[in-house]
């Protein structure tokens, strides 16, 4: 699925990385625990989370995750968005709750075991 299709499914707003919306994503991980993200042995293309601090971007960077989706319209600070921009990441804000966002994306074929 292209990132632009994910954005549409989640009624999302792109905060940075507009030039990468045609990148393909297949795997998704949803968590507010960054420790769990770091413990995932699989390749993750997209992280869904309700946390909006700097450590989300650092964790995504360490795991080479190119797309971060913030749920429930929680808007990160400009500092956090700038960190993501410097790392060439895409940030999307969705009004969906975590459960709803996961449900829509699972139904569309995304996810990890």
């Amino acid at each position, binding site marked *: 699925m292209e990132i632009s299709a994910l954005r549409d499914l989640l009624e999302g707003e792109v905060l940075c990385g507009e030039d990468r919306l045609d990148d393909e994503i297949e795997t998704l991980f949803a968590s507010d625990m960054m420790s769990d993200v770091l413990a995932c042995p699989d390749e993750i293309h997209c992280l869904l989370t309700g946390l909006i601090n700097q450590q989300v971007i650092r964790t995504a*960077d*360490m795991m080479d995750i190119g797309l971060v989706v913030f749920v429930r319209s929680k808007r990160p600070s400009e500092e956090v968005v700038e960190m993501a921009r410097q790392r060439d990441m895409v940030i999307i804000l969705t009004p969906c709750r975590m459960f709803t966002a996961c449900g829509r994306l699972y139904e569309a074929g995304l996810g990890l075991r």
Partner: protein
Amino acid sequence: MDTVKLVYEIDGDNFSAAGEASTAVKRVLKKLKLPSAIVRRAVICMYEGEINMVIHADGGRAYVDVDEEKIVIRLEDRGPGIPDIDKAMQEGWSTASAEARNSGFGAGMGLPNMKRNSNDMKIETELGVGTTVTMTILFGGEAS
């Protein structure tokens, strides 16, 4: 390849800055054109360790040595020490603060994850003196 030696001061007073050294290490390892799986394992070890140093030990110093065969990461702190290493190694065991937990850490996953991503991990600790964690990532070996 000549041995590359890196040293970073870890600031223990600023949780939001935790991870800056790991970001710098990742940049160097990628410049050295190491395999991406090795880089990933090394930066997970480094980042988890750096977070631990900020959460538990008021910062410290990180030494990263890279040669033709391996990466060795040594994290030294002058924190309170670990009273029970076996307990600290159990997944889910944590003494982290509310601030750390609110930031997505402190779930008791750090040390086990560092061990999993390294080929060898050694913890030297003395109560009231500090802790040194040394992790080795071999280029030729699978993670433990």
